[in-house]
Structures are given as C-alpha cells and as structure tokens.
C-alpha cells in the first residue's frame, strides 16, 4: 500500500496490544501543560479509546500504516487549541490522507483556527472523518464543519457498508458503531458502542476507496462515496437542531386566540390512540387516568426487552404488544410515542424505529413529546419511500411564535379565579397523579377546572395548555421570559375557558437536595422557581417523601413563601421510600421500597406533628371529601 497512512487523533495507541501486533504503527504526542502545548515522541495509550480506533482500522485494512497522534492534558480535558495542534501536524505530513478524529468539542462558537485548518485539509486533499456527538442535537466540532465528514452510528450488519446523508447537514456518513467488542487499554477489551467507532469504520472504508482510486479529487471522492453508499441504512441518532415546527407567526384572530387555551382543538385529527412504550412513566399516567383522556386507547406497545423484567407488572398485562404485526395497526388512527431514544439498549431503540416506520407506512398520525423523536419522524416522512404519507405529526411545545400570540393576553385584568399548584421536594413523587386526582375530585362536584400541565402527556389528558419543561423539554423560551409569559397564560386560560379554578404543577424538585451548584443547574430547580414565580399560585399542595428531612421540607415551605406567598393546603406523601444499597465498594444502588399502610401512617403522623399541616395519601379515596372541603374553605371568599 505504499506510503498511504491514516492518522488517529485520540488518546494514543497501545502498539503492544494483541490486536495490533501485526500493525505498522508510528506516532507523536501533544500535551497541554502549564507551559503551553508540548510535542513528545511517546504516543502510548493508557486509556484505551485510541487503541480501539486503531484496532478497528487495522482489522479492516491490515496492511495500512496508522499514525497515532496522542492528545493529552494535565487538566484531563482536550480543548480545541490542542485538537487544532494535532490536526495541523497531520495535514502537513506528506503521506497522511485520512485523519480519524473520534472526538470533538461541543461548542456553539467553534475555534476559528480549527475551522481554518479543516478547510486547509480539504484544500490539500486530506479527508477528516470526525464523530458527531453521541447525544443528538449537540453541536460538536470538527464534525460539524462542512469541510469535515461528520459520522454517526447506524444499524449496519456488514461493517464495510455505510450510508451517505444527502443535504447540507452536519452529518454526512452513517457507519457501524453499534455494540461491538473493542481492543482497549492494558491489552484488554471492552464491549461498547458509539459514534467514535462508527468513525473508525468509515475512515478505513474511505482509505480503501482512496487507495483504489489514486489521484481522485476531494469532490470526486465525495461523488464516489455517494454512488457506493448503501440505501436505507438507519441511524442510531441524528443531529438536526435547526428545524422549527410551528404555526407561522402572525397576530391571532379570535378563533386562534381561543384555540391557544383549548388544546383539544389542536387534536381534532385524533380518535383512537396506541401508546408506545407503555412501561414509560408518562404512559403510566395515561393508563392510570385514562378517564381524562378524550380518546380511546386501543393498543399498548412496549419494548421487547425489559431491563427490569423480573418485576414489571406491565408484562402481566395480556394486551401489551411487544412485536410488530401489521394487523395491530388497524385499530387506531394515532400512535403516541414517548422517550424511546433514551433507552440504553440498541434493540429497544430499533424496535421504536420499526414501530414508527410501520405507523408511517400505515399512514397513522403520530404524537410525540420528545423533540428528538419528532425530528426523526419528520425526517423519515421526507424520504422517498414515505412520500405518500399524509398523516399528522404533532408535538406539544412552546416557542417564540406561541409566545407572541399568548402575549396578546397580557393586558387583561389579573386572574380572579384560584390557582392551585402541586409542587414537591423531589422528583418521582406523583405530582401529575396528584393533579389528576384533584381534577377528578373537583370535577365530580361540578367545578370546571382548567388544567395547565407541565407534563407533555397532559395534552392527552384533557389539559387546556401544556408548558412541557423538564426532561427533554420542548419549551424554547428563555427562562427570563417565563414570568411574563406564564402570567399571560393564566390570564388567557381564565378569559377563554371561564374555569372555577386553574390547576397546575411543577416538574421535578423545587430545591436542590444538596448545596451542589451542578445539581442546581442540572436538575431544573431554577426552572421550577421560574415557573412558580410566573404562575404565582394562590395555594399549593406539596408532595413529600418518607425519607425527606424536616429541614428539606421546611426549605421548600420557606421558598414557596418567598417566591409566591401562597397558602400551603396540605402535604401528599408518596408510599415509596427511597433506599440506598451498597452493592460493592464503589457502587451504590438506589431502590424504592413500597411502604405498608401502617409504615406510611407513621411517617404521616411524624410530619403532621412537626409542621402542623395535614399529610395525606392522595390515592386514598376516603380522603376525597376532606380534600374538597379544604379547597372550598380555602377559597370560600372567592366563591368557588
């Protein structure tokens, strides 16, 4: 193969690994130190990642020379400057024609020097194959540069195959990156998956093309890659965050203004629905409170592989379908899809893809609450094979166009009906369950409730408006605008629906459970505080856990006083107590223990004695009349 070389910019290469003993390897190292970037000769890999990349390439092209370009840093993280240095070295080596970069820097404003070097590489006929971020939607460089072949992982049986993504997007190539055994550090192995390994496979494929087509230009090679790509290769992720999916921005007429706060009017295309995956928490609410769903649920799909299959009560349901049969799609018009892309098992993600594919083929409408799933569906609908699809694809979301329309309500008088908010000391406490129970209890007495849901599935449970912040949220609105926006939303709900009461709830916890700044920003606590300020509830129902400390609960009470000055009506307590089990010296497993009735009562008594505020089990129907009485008394002056 003459002097053709592939450079691997990574953690170095362990040339003594058994998988690489017959591989011709050379290398260099660039280290980020306090004195600046230092060039060294030792490129040994102590981490394993670079060795895995080299071994994949060597297996596909045993005779090719691999040049390891090790990047290391005393701080432990690789920055764009260091990456640029390694890249610069590669593109000025005479025999390196392919540079594998199975890493990247997530940034919205990439380093200009890195951009310039990637362009220079292209001008010199050097191909850079770089991994896109493993998390969909993250901009990652150099993969995102137009002069770089961005690679993601796909479902590929034959590792010599690849897919070519047409268009101007950041991702150009889909290659094999699914579960595989990899050479790793210390002459060991690892089983893993990801875009890094897809990139390595593609670098070898590209090198093979270049060897077999000497002298071909950069543009000519791109054409060759297109011509030889396999069709219908499914990706395991996609990166396309620029798509917008909303009605055009214009002043709303009266009908549109009303429709803003009557969510059901957006779903007039739905009659019978199927749910996937029913084991998901959000779907569980749909099952538990199906009476609030204006649509008939006629089919339940779930993953074929369940991690916690030992005790999943859902598996005992006779009507849960875990395989795909065309006939199963005849009994509904709309498929509701949850967060299946969050699955840790490739097989379950693939199952999700197949369900969507069948739904499109059978021309079903699709509703999802995951923006990543939404983008995937839209993309599949645009393919040649699905061009006859005429179904509707819908996602509950808030963007600046909704903002503009809702803000036309901001000049209305202040809301004059009570607003009750359900909040809590942590996540997974049944806050949406509490809201649905309150809605049922008050609804049975003839009260008209306008539900403002922060859970995306609220759209299918009769909510009048959905503000889906939280996990994989679809609220594309700066948090500093939430206050004015949510104030206008409550005015709109009151003005359009004329309810007796507005009911809503926060997502997750209201305050961090420790003083970690990372937890504050990562767990959405600040979002919930913005939400509380925007809604300004008159009264609050607070969910607590058996394991909560008095101080944690007191902190939430204090915060509610500070941010909303609202009345705390009562606590609801979850019967699940979180426990931590030391599984090994380094691993701790958390589990939820279901408390017995007497155990739960003990906790209820304890909290009630401490705070002098009633603590109830919201699922206990014996409490219904008491709950009604508390709410009626709380707002008796407002003539609820």
């Amino acid at each position, binding site marked *: 193969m003459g002097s053709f070389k592939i450079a691997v910019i990574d953690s170095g290469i362990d040339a003594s690994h058994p*998988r690489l003993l017959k591989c011709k390897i050379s290398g260099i190292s660039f280290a980020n130190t306090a004195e600046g970037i230092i060039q060294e000769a030792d490129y040994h890999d102590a981490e394993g990642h670079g060795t895995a990349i080299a*071994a994949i390439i060597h*297996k596909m092209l045993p005779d090719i020379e691999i040049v390891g370009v090790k990047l290391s840093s005393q701080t432990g993280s690789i920055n764009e400057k260091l990456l640029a240095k390694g890249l610069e070295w590669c593109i000025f080596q005479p025999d390196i024609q392919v540079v594998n970069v199975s890493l990247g820097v997530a940034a919205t404003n990439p380093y200009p020097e890195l951009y310039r070097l990637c362009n220079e590489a292209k001008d010199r006929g050097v191909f850079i194959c770089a991994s896109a971020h493993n998390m969909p939607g993250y901009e990652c460089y150099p993969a995102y540069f137009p002069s770089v072949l961005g690679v993601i992982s796909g*479902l590929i049986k034959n*590792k010599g195959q690849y897919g070519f993504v047409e268009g101007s997007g950041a991702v150009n190539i889909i290659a094999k990156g*699914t*579960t*595989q*055994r*990899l050479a790793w550090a210390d002459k060991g*192995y*690892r*089983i*893993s998956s990801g875009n890094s390994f897809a990139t390595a496979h593609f670098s070898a494929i590209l090198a093979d093309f270049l060897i077999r087509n000497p002298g071909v230009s950069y543009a000519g090679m791109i054409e060759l890659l297109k011509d030889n790509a396999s069709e219908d290769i499914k990706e395991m992720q996609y990166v396309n965050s620029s798509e917008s999916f909303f009605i055009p921005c214009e002043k709303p007429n009266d009908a549109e203004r009303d429709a803003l706060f009557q969510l059901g009017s957006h779903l007039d295309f739905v009659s019978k629905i199927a749910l996937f995956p029913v084991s998901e928490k959000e779907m569980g609410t749909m099952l538990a409170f199906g009476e609030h769903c204006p649509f008939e649920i006629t089919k339940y799909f779930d993953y074929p*592989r*369940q*991690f916690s*299959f030992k005790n999943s009560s859902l598996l005992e349901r006779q009507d849960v379908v875990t395989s795909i049969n065309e006939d199963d799609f005849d009994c509904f018009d709309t498929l509701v899809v949850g967060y299946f892309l969050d699955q*840790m*098992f*490739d*097989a379950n993600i*693939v199952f999700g893809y197949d369900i969507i594919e069948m739904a499109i083929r059978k021309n079903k409408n699709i509703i999802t609450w995951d923006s990543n799933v939404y983008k995937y569906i839209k993309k599949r609908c645009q393919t040649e094979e699905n061009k006859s699809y005429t179904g509707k694809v819908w996602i509950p979301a808030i963007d600046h166009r909704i903002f503009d329309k809702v803000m036309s309500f901001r000049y209305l008088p202040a809301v004059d009906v009570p607003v009750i908010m359900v909040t809590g000391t942590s996540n997974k406490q049944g806050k949406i369950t509490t809201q649905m129970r309150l809605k049922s209890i008050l609804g049975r007495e003839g009260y008209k409730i306008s539900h403002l849901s922060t859970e995306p599935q609220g759209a299918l449970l009769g909510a009048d408006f959905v503000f889906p912040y939280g996990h994989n949220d679809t609220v594309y609105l700066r948090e500093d605008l939430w206050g004015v926006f949510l104030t206008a939303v409550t005015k709109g709900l009151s003005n359009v629906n004329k309810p007796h009461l507005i009911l809503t709830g926060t997502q997750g916890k209201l305050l961090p459970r420790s003083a970690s700044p990372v937890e504050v920003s990562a767990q959405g606590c600040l979002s919930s505080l913005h939400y509380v300020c925007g809604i300004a509830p008159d009264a609050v129902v607070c969910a607590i856990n058996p394991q909560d400390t008095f101080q944690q609960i007191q902190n939430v009470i204090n915060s509610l006083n500070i941010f909303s000055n609202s009345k705390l009506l009562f606590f609801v307590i979850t019967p699940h107590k979180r426990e931590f089990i030391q599984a090994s010296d380094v691993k701790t497993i958390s589990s939820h223990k279901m408390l017995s009735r007497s155990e739960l009562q003990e906790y209820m008594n304890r909290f009630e004695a401490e705070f002098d505020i009633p603590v109830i089990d919201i699922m206990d129907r014996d409490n219904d009349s008491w709950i009604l009485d508390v709410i009626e008394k709380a707002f008796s002056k407002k003539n609820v």
Partner: protein
Amino acid sequence: MMTEIENLTQKAWSIACKMVEWNENEPINDSLLHVILSESQQALEFVCLLEDEFDIEFDDDDINLDFFLSFEYIAGKILLRQTE
C-alpha cells in the same frame, strides 16, 4: 433428543444464569442478555466465559448487537467457531 444448537443454547443460558445469579432451571429468557449488556464489563466477562467454556475465540465482529439479542444466535456463533 436435543439438537446441537439446542444443547449449546442451554449451556450458554446456564453460563449467563450463573453469572448474574439467576435460576437456570427457569425457561430461557433472552432478556437476561440485556441485563448482562447493561454493564460493559459484565458483557465482556460473559463473552470470555463462553470462549473459555467452549474453547473457542469469537471474532470481534461476532460480538455485535445480534449477539445480545438471543441465546440461540450465540449458540449458532459457537457452533460456527467450533466447526472452523
């Protein structure tokens, strides 16, 4: 009379069960493979145990998504390596 594939499938199931302390007398359940795959190190250990037990060496390309989908698929790969 068990076929060779059935026999190998049963043995692979037994190895998996011992590894995660699952009752091997229960019917073969492919979901156990996903429990194993949930931890990279555990998955690797399982593959190594199979290689030791059957005195074979899988090609790295054998260890793919399909490998962790069914015990029967694993049995097929073992048989293939044994007959090479």
